[in-house]
Each structure stands twice: as structure tokens, then as C-alpha cells.
């Protein structure tokens, strides 16, 4: 059933399903406007105001969400931390999605030895737990924002390759694709003009679900000290230090974690809506 044919009531219901996107958009906006939104410099220390509970005023600081172990304003750090989460998630999804989709399409269209080679490599990558592969790669390359993106792209592209491959297999045999090739269209033209528009829906579904996972992965790597390095604010790193003060200052670990949870939940709900909209099996 297409959205055009839907009744007004159904259309309204469908529109309602997109409310989580508003949360994602709000976090994205906060990340973009961080320098103007954050009340203080996220790295400004105030040792007299260490581990103050939410609502405390200390010197020139008003800690709406409390302060951390160096007296830095938690609210400002959370707002700036959103930048790291979203930059890493966006960049790694786009990078792994582009690489994976391209390789998967080529494998499915060209067949032969390219297909065997690409899909065997995909199998190998998928048989190493992604977290472990990410850990060893960061251990080799050294932790930094760019390396985290590269590592996540390296570990996640096989997911897209698999989907693009199976979708291409079923579409490449269709008459219009054959005709295009017969009429002299080269492989790149067939792939990107004729195949890509037909598989982009399935790839987008994977991408939205992966996006939430990438936010969690970045936070996990930062939590282990393998992500963005201090003093740059990252939710995972904030949780990691906050863990040491959980008995005395609950807010340091709890609040960044809550942001992480809400963002990932909103992304996953959006992913469900995208899947229902784009994946014909769920319509």
C-alpha cells in the first residue's frame, strides 16, 4: 500500500511515527550550536566546585546539571559531547555504507571471481566480533576521532555489502537492467543509474539501524579509553570517569548515560519507522 492511497487517519498515524526523529534533530541541533548553547567552556575547570550536585552555584559557575571531578560544567560537556557522538556516527555510517554498498553491488553485478573474493572477505569480517576487531585496530592505530571513524567503517562495511549484494543479485537479472547493458551502458552507469536507486531503500534501513549502533560503539570505545582523548568531552568517556564517583556523585555518570540512551532509543525508533516505510515486506 502506498502512502498516497492511505486514508487521512492512516496518514496521520504514519506521521506520528516520526516523532523520534524530532529528538534526533534536537540533539543534532544542540551539537551544531554547541559553542553558543553551552553556558560555559566545556573544559573550564573550577577546582573549588568539584563534584557539585545539580543546581549548585560555585564562584562564577551555575551548575544546572552538576559538575564533574574537575569542577567542569556537566551540562556544557554533555552538549559538546553530542558533537563527538553524532560526528562519529554520521561519518562512519556514510563511509562504511558507501564502501560496503559499492563492493556489494559490484560483487552482485559482475559475479565470477570478484563475487567470490568480496563475499569471502565479508564472511571473514563478520566472523570476528566487531567490538574486538575495533579494539585491536584502535590499539594499532592509536586513539583519535579520525581513527575511531576509520575503525568503525572498517568493521561495519560488510553489513552493507551483504544487503547490497543480495539486492543486486535479484535486480540485476531484470529485463530493464539487461537492456541498459545491451544498449551499451557501462558497468558504472548500470550500477549507479539503474541498480542503486532500487537498492538504496534496503541500504537506508541498514544505515539507520547501524547509526544507533555506531553511537553506542563510539561511546563504548571512549569508555574503554580508546575513543576521543581527554579533555574533549565524549559521553562514553564521561561515563567512564563518572563510574569512579557513582557512590558520591551519581550525576556524573548517570546524566551522560541518559542522553546516550535517549538518543539511541530515538534513532532505533526512527529506524523502525524507516524500515516500515521503505522495506516492502513490512508494509
Amino acid at each position, binding site marked *: 500500500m502506498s502512502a498516497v492511497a492511505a486514508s487521512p487517519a492512516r496518514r496521520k498515524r504514519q506521521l506520528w511515527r516520526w516523532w523520534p526523529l524530532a529528538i534526533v534533530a534536537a540533539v543534532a541541533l544542540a551539537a551544531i550550536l554547541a559553542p553558543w548553547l553551552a553556558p560555559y567552556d566545556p573544559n573550564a575547570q573550577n577546582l573549588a566546585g568539584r563534584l557539585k550536585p545539580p543546581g549548585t552555584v560555585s564562584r562564577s559557575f551555575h551548575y544546572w546539571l552538576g559538575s564533574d571531578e574537575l569542577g567542569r560544567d556537566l551540562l556544557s560537556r554533555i552538549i559538546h559531547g553530542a558533537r563527538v557522538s553524532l560526528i562519529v556516527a554520521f561519518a562512519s555510517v556514510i563511509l562504511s555504507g558507501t564502501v560496503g554498498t559499492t563492493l556489494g553491488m559490484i560483487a552482485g553485478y559482475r559475479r565470477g571471481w570478484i563475487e567470490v573474493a568480496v563475499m569471502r572477505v565479508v564472511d571473514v569480517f563478520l566472523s*570476528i566480533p566487531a567490538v574486538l576487531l575495533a*579494539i585491536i585496530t584502535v590499539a594499532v592505530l592509536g586513539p583519535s576521532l579520525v581513527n575511531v571513524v576509520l575503525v568503525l567503517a572498517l568493521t561495519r562495511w560488510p553489513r552493507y555489502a551483504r544487503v547490497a549484494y543480495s539486492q543486486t543479485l535479484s535486480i540485476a537479472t531484470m529485463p530493464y537492467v539487461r537492456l541498459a547493458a545491451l544498449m551499451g551502458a557501462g558497468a558504472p552507469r548500470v550500477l549507479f543509474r539503474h541498480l542503486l536507486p532500487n537498492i538504496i531503500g534496503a541500504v537506508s534501513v541498514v544505515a539507520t539501524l547501524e547509526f544507533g549502533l555506531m553511537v553506542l560503539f563510539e561511546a563504548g570505545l571512549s569508555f574503554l579509553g580508546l575513543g576521543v582523548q581527554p579533555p574533549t568531552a565524549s559521553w562514553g568517556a564521561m561515563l567512564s570517569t563518572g563510574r569512579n564517583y557513582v557512590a558520591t556523585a551519581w550525576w556524573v555518570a548517570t546524566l551522560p548515560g541518559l542522553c546516550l540512551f535517549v538518543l539511541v532509543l530515538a534513532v532505533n525508533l526512527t529506524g523502525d519507522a524507516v524500515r516500515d516505510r521503505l522495506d516492502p515486506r513490512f508494509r
Partner: protein
Amino acid sequence: MQGFLLRRAGQALATIIGVVTLIFFVQRLTGDPTYLLVPETATKADVDALRHVMGFDRPLLIQYLDFLADLARFDLGQSVVQRVPVMTIIASRLPYTLMLAAGALLVACGIGVPVGILLAIFRDKPVAKLAAGFVLAAQSMPTFWSGILMILVFSVLLGWLPPSSTGDLSHLVMPSFALGLLSMATFARITRSALLDELSKDYARTARSRGVRTGRLLVRHIARNASIPLITVAALEISNLLAGAVIVETVFAWPGIGQVTVQAILARDFMIVQGVVLMGAFVTVALNLVSDLLYSLVDPRIVLDGGR
């Protein structure tokens, strides 16, 4: 059946060789792996000496074959910091991680499967919507945050459970839940879709029309058919649990392989990190093989069909 077994074992071996090759190249991403093995204070002479001792100055192909030969003898090398074989270190910590993974799997199946049944049977009822919300929340919860929240509530505020380290079974409760919650969501989703799939089939509808009650229908008619996707998921989830243990063990100071890995990263003890990753990959490949074999036990048709 023998042909099926041989073919599957051959595929697993090919994958393992692929994994080893991948790790070999990851190790050389920066060009010279010697720098991964020396402390930051090492002089150039130290680096040169170690490079020669480790054989990193030999041709790449020789190094690769040497790497394969060592692994074939189950030799994962030696910890640079502790001067102990990596295998010994992993073996001493493995029981703790297995214990944790078992606890987590118990939580994941014990909650996930019933929730999945609930989702399938009461499809659009409020109780199913509530359960669906629970599953989605569990899926979006970072393990390190749920772990910290549990410590805050059950250890700090209520004082019911010990916050960290090992001891009696009560030490295992919170880590198991923290690690198991994410897999729980997966089990619930797969159980739901497997049940819905089977419930819509002719044999299930026939049984229903003959007046078979839902409980009996599930146990006697559907359970075996619906268990096939669950077996795959269980195999995949066990390897996810082993990987997830890295974070959960850090949160709860649980002395398993994950904790060793994180300590090794901080101490720049690369051989341990590499050993753990290789072991994780081997376990994953082995579990996939086992799940394939289990399939053929549950559903004989898979072998008769040629087993693809």
C-alpha cells in the same frame, strides 16, 4: 551426512585462515609492528633489537607463514610486559568470562524467549505493546550505563548486591543482567518472528481449528520448528556476549578476559590484545559450525537437501 560435515569444516577452516590473515595485516597497518610492543620510553636501539628478536625485519611472506605456524601450534606468543605466554594468561581468566557469559545467556534466554512468546501471542494487545517497549529500551541501553545504574541502585542505595569483583553467586547477578539485557532483546525479537511465522502455517491453523489449546500448540507442534532460528541466534549471541564482556567486566571489575584485554591495551601489551581477538574469532567460527550441525539434528531436511 559425512560430506556435509566435511564441507562445513572446510569452510570454517578457510574462514579461520582468512581471520588470521586479516589480523596479520591489521597488525601491520602502521607499517612496523615493533612499535606496538615497546614501551613509549624505548630508545631506537631497543626498538631495533626487538625488531630483530621478533623477526619483523624478515620478508613479509616468511613472517606470515611463521605466524600461521605458531597459531597452528596454539602458540599466541608471549606477553611483552608480563613475560608469560599469552595462552597461559587467557586460560587463567577464561573460566570467569565463561561463567559471566553463561549467566548472561541465562538472563537473555530466560527473559527473552518468554517475552517473545508474549509478543507473538498477544500481538496487538496492550501487554504486547508494553513488552515491545521493554525490548526496545533494553536494545538501546548501553551496557556500561545499565551496569552503572544497577550498581547505583542495588549496591549504593539498597545495599542488596556487591558492586564489583568476584566471590559467591551474588557477585554474578548484576554483571549477568548488564551483559544479558542486549541479547535478551535479540532473543525476544527472533522468538516473536519465528512464532508468528509458524503460527500462520497450515499445520498450526489445522491444529487450532481442531481445538488444540495455545499452550499445547506451542509446546507440541511449534516449539521444534521455531527453535531453528533461535539456535542460529544463540550461536551468534554467545560470541557477542564474549565481546560485550570486555565492557561489562571493566564496569564490574570482573577478572575475566575482557578485563585483561583492557589492562593490556592501557599497558601497550599488544600480544595479549591480539591473542584475545584471535580467540574471539575462533570461538565465533566454531559456534557457527556447531549451530550448523545442530540445525541438521533439529531439522533432518537440511542435510537431505544437500545442506547448501
